[in-house]
C-alpha cells in the first residue's frame, strides 16, 4: 500500500532494512518479537514512526505507517509495529499519558476484565489497557507483569493472548467514547492494510510461478484457464486495495473523525475479507502442490491473509455492520451511505 504521499527514499529504506533482516534469518514459528530488529528499527525512527516528535516519535503519518506495514508483510516479518505505534502509543499520547521506550500493545477489556486474542501481549513490556466503568472509558499503561497473560497464537503463530486484568489495581485516565471508537477503526484498518499487502505479494509470486513453470511444453501462463485465475486474483486484490485506500484517505484527511469513516472501514474490511477467499483459492490453485509446502513462501501470504482477515472483527462481523448501516439508511438512502 505504497501511497504517493510517501517519500520514495523512506519507502526504499523501509524495504531495504526489512529485506536485509529477512535474508539474514528465517522466520520463527511461533513468531517472537526480534529484539535486535526492534533496536535497529528504533534507531531508524521506524518503531514510533507516527509518534509525536516531542516524545521520541518520528512525526510521520498513516501513509508512511501503511508503507512500513506493507514492507514487513512483503518480507514475511512478523513484528508488532502497528500494535505498538499506531494503536498503543497513539492511545497513550491522545490520553495525555507519557510514552517511553517500552514495547507496547493495546487491549480492550470486557465487563469482567478479560480480553481474548490480544495481539502480541506476551512479548510486550507494557499493555495499554482500556475498560469501561459506568459508561466511561478508562485507559491505563499497565506493566505486563501486572496482568495475567495466557499465551495463544493465531494460525500463523503470532501471539494472540488471553489477558485478565485486576481493574481495581489500575489507575485509569478517562478518555472520550469517540476515541475508543477511533481505536476500533484503527485496529480494523491495520489488518485491512496487512491483508492487502499479503494479497499483492501472493499475486506477485503467482505471476513468477506461472511464467517460469512449464507443463505440456509451455509456460502455465500460456493457458487461458490459468490467465483467468490470475486475472481474478488481480481484480479482487485491486478492489480490496481501492476500498482500503478510500478508508485510509478519509481517515487521514479528517484525522479519523469523518462521519462516514465507520462505513468506509467496514466496507474495506468486507471487500478485503471476501477478496482473500478468491486470492487464496486461486493463488494456491495456480501454484499446484508446491504452494502447499513449508518450503515455498506462498503460505507466508495466503495463511497470513486468512489469519488477519478474521481479526478485530470477523468478515461476517463487518458484513453485519454494513448490513446494519444499510438498514438504517432507510428508503432511497443506500446511495448516500456509499457516496455521502
Amino acid at each position: 500500500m505504497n501511497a504517493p504521499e510517501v517519500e520514495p527514499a523512506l519507502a526504499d529504506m523501509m524495504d531495504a532494512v526489512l529485506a536485509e533482516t529477512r535474508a539474514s534469518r528465517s522466520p520463527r514459528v511461533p513468531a517472537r518479537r526480534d529484539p535486535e530488529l526492534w533496536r535497529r528499527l528504533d534507531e531508524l525512527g521506524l518503531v514510533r514512526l507516527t509518534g509525536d516528535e516531542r516524545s521520541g516519535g518520528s512525526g510521520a503519518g498513516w501513509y508512511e505507517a501503511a508503507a512500513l506495514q506493507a514492507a514487513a508483510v512483503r518480507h514475511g516479518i512478523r513484528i508488532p509495529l502497528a500494535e505498538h505505534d499506531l494503536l498503543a502509543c497513539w492511545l497513550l499520547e491522545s490520553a495525555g499519558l507519557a510514552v517511553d521506550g517500552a514495547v507496547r500493545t493495546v487491549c480492550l477489556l470486557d465487563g469482567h476484565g478479560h480480553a481474548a486474542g490480544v495481539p502480541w501481549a506476551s512479548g510486550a513490556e507494557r499493555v495499554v489497557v482500556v475498560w469501561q466503568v459506568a459508561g466511561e472509558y478508562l485507559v491505563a499503561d499497565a506493566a505486563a507483569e501486572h496482568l495475567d497473560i495466557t499465551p495463544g497464537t493465531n494460525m500463523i503463530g503470532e501471539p494472540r493472548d488471553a489477558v485478565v486484568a485486576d481493574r481495581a489495581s489500575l489507575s485509569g485516565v478517562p478518555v472520550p467514547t469517540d476515541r475508543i471508537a477511533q481505536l476500533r477503526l484503527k485496529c480494523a484498518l491495520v489488518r485491512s492494510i496487512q491483508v492487502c499487502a499479503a494479497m499483492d505479494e501472493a499475486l506477485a509470486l503467482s505471476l513468477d510461478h506461472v511464467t517460469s513453470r512449464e507443463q505440456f511444453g509451455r509456460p502455465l501462463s500460456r493457458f487461458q484457464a490459468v490467465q483467468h485465475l490470475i486475472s481474478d486474483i488481480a481484480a479482487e486484490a485491486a478492489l480490496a486495495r481501492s476500498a482500503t485506500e478510500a478508508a485510509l484517505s478519509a481517515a487521514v484527511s479528517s484525522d479519523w473523525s469523518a462521519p462516514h469513516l465507520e462505513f468506509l472501514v467496514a466496507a474495506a474490511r468486507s471487500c478485503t475479507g471476501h477478496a482473500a477467499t478468491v486470492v487464496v483459492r486461486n493463488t494456491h490453485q495456480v501454484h499446484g502442490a508446491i504452494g502447499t509446502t513449508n518450503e515455498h513462501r506462498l503460505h507466508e501470504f495466503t495463511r497470513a491473509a486468512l489469519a488477519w482477515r478474521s481479526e478485530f472483527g470477523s468478515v461476517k462481523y463487518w458484513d453485519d455492520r454494513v448490513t446494519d448501516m444499510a438498514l438504517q439508511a432507510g428508503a432511497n438512502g443506500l446511495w448516500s451511505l456509499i457516496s455521502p
Partner: protein
Amino acid sequence: MALPRLVPRSTVDPAGTEELRHEVRQFLAEQLAAGRFTPSVDAWLCGWDEEFTAALAARGWLGMTVPAEYGGHGRSFVERFAVTEELLAAGAPVAAHWIADRQIVPSLLKYGTEFQRSEFLPKIVRGECFFGIGMSEPDSGSDLASVRTKAETVDGGWALTGTKVWTSGAHLAHAFIALARTEPVDPGHRHTGLSQFIVDLRGSGVEIRPIVSMNGAHHFNEVLLDGAFVPDTMVFGEIGQGWQQVTSELAFERSGPERFLSTFVLLDACAETMGYQQLSRSTDLGRLVARVAGLHQMSSAVAGALERHEPADVPAAVVKILGTTTEGDIAEFAHLAGEHTAGQRFTDLVATALDQRPGFTLRGGTNEVLRGVIARGLGLR
C-alpha cells in the same frame, strides 16, 4: 519491491463534486415527487425517455465535457462522472442520450472534424440527437476485427453494405457510428483496413428490424445497410484507422458507473424491504453494499485517470469484470431471498434484473475477453 499498481490510486476529492451531487439528488427527488419517472433496473439501456433527457439538458447535465464553443458546458470528466453516478444510482431513465453522451462526445472531441463537431455536439448537449453503436455483427461479437460490413467509394462518399446487430435504440436514435472494412482482410494484419462512418439511421439504404428480448422488451435492433450512402464529410476519423479509434475509447465505455449500478435500485429495495422485515435479514446485503462501495471508489479512480489522459484499459477491465458480476450477484441475492410478502414492485424489479443479468457480463466486452485484457496487462500474454 511491490508490483506496479493495476488500478490507479484515487485522486478524486469527493468534496469537489459534493455540491453538484446534491443538486442532482435534489433534481431527482423533485422528478420522482412529480411522477416523472419510476426507478428501474438497467435504465441506461431500457429507460428511453426523451422528456427526461430534455429536463437533464435544461439543467446542463448532458454533454457536460463539451467545450462552450460547441454549446457545451466545459465541465470536467470527473463532474460528468458524479452526475451520471447519481442518475444511475436512482434508476433514472437515461437510455435516450446515454450512448451519445458517454462515447460519442469524447470520440467527436478526439476524432471528429470541425464540421462534425459543429453538426452534432450542440444537438447532443440540447438532448436533441441520439446515437447508437454500430460495431457488432451477426458473425462478429467479441472478435470485432472480423466485421464484414463493407464500405466502398462512390461519387461524393461511401456506400456501406452489411448487417449490424445489438444496436440499442436504433429504432429511435438519429445516427450511429459504423465500423466497416474499407480494405479486404489481410490475415497477417487483421486490425488494418477498418474505418468508421457516421450513418444517418433515417437515410435510404438503412433498414431497422427489432430484436425482441426474451422478456418481450424491445431495445435491440438489427440494422441492415444496403448501399447506405455516407458523404465524405461523415467519414469518422481517418480511413484505415478504425481499429485504433475504437479501441482507444474503450476505457470510457468500460469503467463507468453503469458497469456496477445497473441493479442498484434493486439493492436499495432489498435494504428497504429487509428493513420492514419482509425479507429475512442477511449479511449478504452488507457484503454487496460494501462491494458496490469499493467499486464506486475504483471507478472514480479510473475517471480521474481518464481526466488526466492516462491509459486506463486495464483498470477499466477490472472495474467491468467485478462490477458487472456484482450487478448480477445483486439480482441473484434478491431472487434467492425474495418471498411473496416482499410485494409486487420488489418482485418486478427482481424479474427485470434476472432477465437483464446475462447481458451485464456480455455487453461492452465479455468478462472472458476482459480477463484476457488483464492478463495482458500483467504481462502474461
